[in-house]
């Protein structure tokens, strides 16, 4: 189980997304997961072995590294990507549940109303599986919830990174006086500039994803509002039509 398996799961769930959702998935996998795997992991690969303190005291490096890097950037980003990807599966679960319900109804109706040929029934079931549900009703709410969760997780992890590392810049030197270090020792971080560049890159990609999610949420809300207004207008028009018909009938009868 690795990133490709997660990608397969999400692409399957993506069928019922809006276009913005599909763009978001591509940005996630190309600019974040792929960059993490092919580039960032090798930058942080020697983070502990090349963390050098100006002392020969055994244990001082371990302790100082642990003090300044409670959680590595790479692990934070991995967890962020896993958590941010999972709300999409909420939508996939809801779609699977709807298909299951509709399939049951289909089987029951064909079972009671005379036995349809198996071929006809199979075709209907296949059509059910392949159809794309419109984002309305309960699916709209599930989708909106998944977007909110995505935004929450993205924001939460970005904030956690900012708080733990006091910003997005990696310093070259940290000063540490934890036991067993004999006094205040200088400890040097490996590849600080490269790490800063990748941190800024990942933070930017994360912000772009947040912007895409907010745009998608706004789009969904706008779609729901227009659908509600159109529905209201249609209902009013049909009411007026039935009213005029009854008026005509009453005129004719008199």
């Amino acid at each position, binding site marked *: 189980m690795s990133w490709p398996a997660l990608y397969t799961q999400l692409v399957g769930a993506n069928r019922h997304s809006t276009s913005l959702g599909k763009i978001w998935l591509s940005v996630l996998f190309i600019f974040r997961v792929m960059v993490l795997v092919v580039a960032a992991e090798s930058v942080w690969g020697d983070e502990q072995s090349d963390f050098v303190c100006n002392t020969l005291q055994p244990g001082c490096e371990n302790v100082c*590294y642990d003090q300044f890097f409670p959680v590595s950037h790479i692990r934070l980003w991995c967890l962020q990507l896993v958590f941010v990807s999972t709300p999409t599966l909420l939508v996939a679960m809801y779609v699977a549940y709807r298909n299951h319900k509709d399939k049951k109804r289909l089987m029951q109706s064909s079972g009671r109303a005379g036995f349809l040929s198996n071929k006809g029934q199979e075709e209907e079931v296949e059509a059910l599986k392949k159809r794309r549900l419109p984002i309305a009703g309960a699916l709209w709410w599930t989708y909106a919830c998944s977007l909110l969760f995505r935004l929450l997780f993205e924001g939460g992890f970005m904030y956690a990174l900012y708080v733990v590392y006091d910003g997005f810049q990696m310093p070259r030197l940290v000063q540490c006086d934890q036991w067993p270090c004999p006094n205040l020792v200088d400890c040097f971080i490996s590849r600080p500039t490269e790490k800063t560049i990748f941190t800024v890159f990942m933070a930017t990609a994360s912000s772009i994803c947040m912007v895409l999610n907010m745009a998608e949420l706004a789009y969904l809300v706008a779609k729901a509002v227009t659908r509600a207004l159109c529905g209201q207008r249609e209902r009013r028009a049909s009411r007026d039509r039935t009213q005029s018909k009854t008026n005509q009938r009453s005129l004719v009868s008199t």
Partner: protein
Amino acid sequence: MNWGTFYAVISGVNRHSTGIGRIWLSVIFIFRILVLVVAAESVWGDEKSGFTCNTQQPGCNSVCYDQFFPISHIRLWALQLILVSTPALLVAMHVAHRRHIDKKILKRSGRTSPKELERVKNQKFQITGALWWTYMISIIFRIIFEVAFLYIFYLIYPDFKMVRLVKCDSYPCPNTVDCFVSRPTEKTIFTVFMLAVSGVCVLLNLAEVVYLISRACKRYFGVSEDESKVAWISQKLSTYRQNEINQLIADHSLKSKFTVTKKSPTERGERCSAF
């Protein structure tokens, strides 16, 4: 054989699971196996090379590491995940056995067209009868393995927090030496995460047990025996052709029982509307 192949094997069982079972499977694969592979393994990657003791005595490092880490967290979690996922294969075996029997029946009745065999292969079984018991036993085994591993974890590492420093005086260390563990805070974070998700999985399994029992009770108390027979027969009948239906009707004299059972008006209305 790696996690990817394991995933392919286990997710095949997904078709015959309940909704809660599918959620449990997703939690296992996304929040435990995926996190283990992409994140946790690199945190524990340098656990031995980064374990430093305040001595130059050769062998002291190895001996002290072995004393304080009899089995690594990563290996414990990998074993836990494998053992916890495998009871699902009991269900897969039962389903395969049922399909084999159905295929045999088809062969005996002389209908061995590839289409019929395909249908038997893709048939989805209801979780009733013997399959219910198999499913229930598999969930109970899952819970037992999960809890057993949590207990073993507690025995070996009583505190979920990873210490920064351990004091060791095993031979050949000359006296009590200080040994420093690498990345203790990061390891604590991941230990807490994995334990929390393990707890969530136990809760999901318990919820699934309760759900299955309640479904069985509803089926037993809510539906009369005759109606259940009708439901069973109409399920079987939908796969037979008309002449065999007539034969079965003649055999079981069920003509009178093919009446519309009591349903709510809305459902009847749904059936009447165009689909």
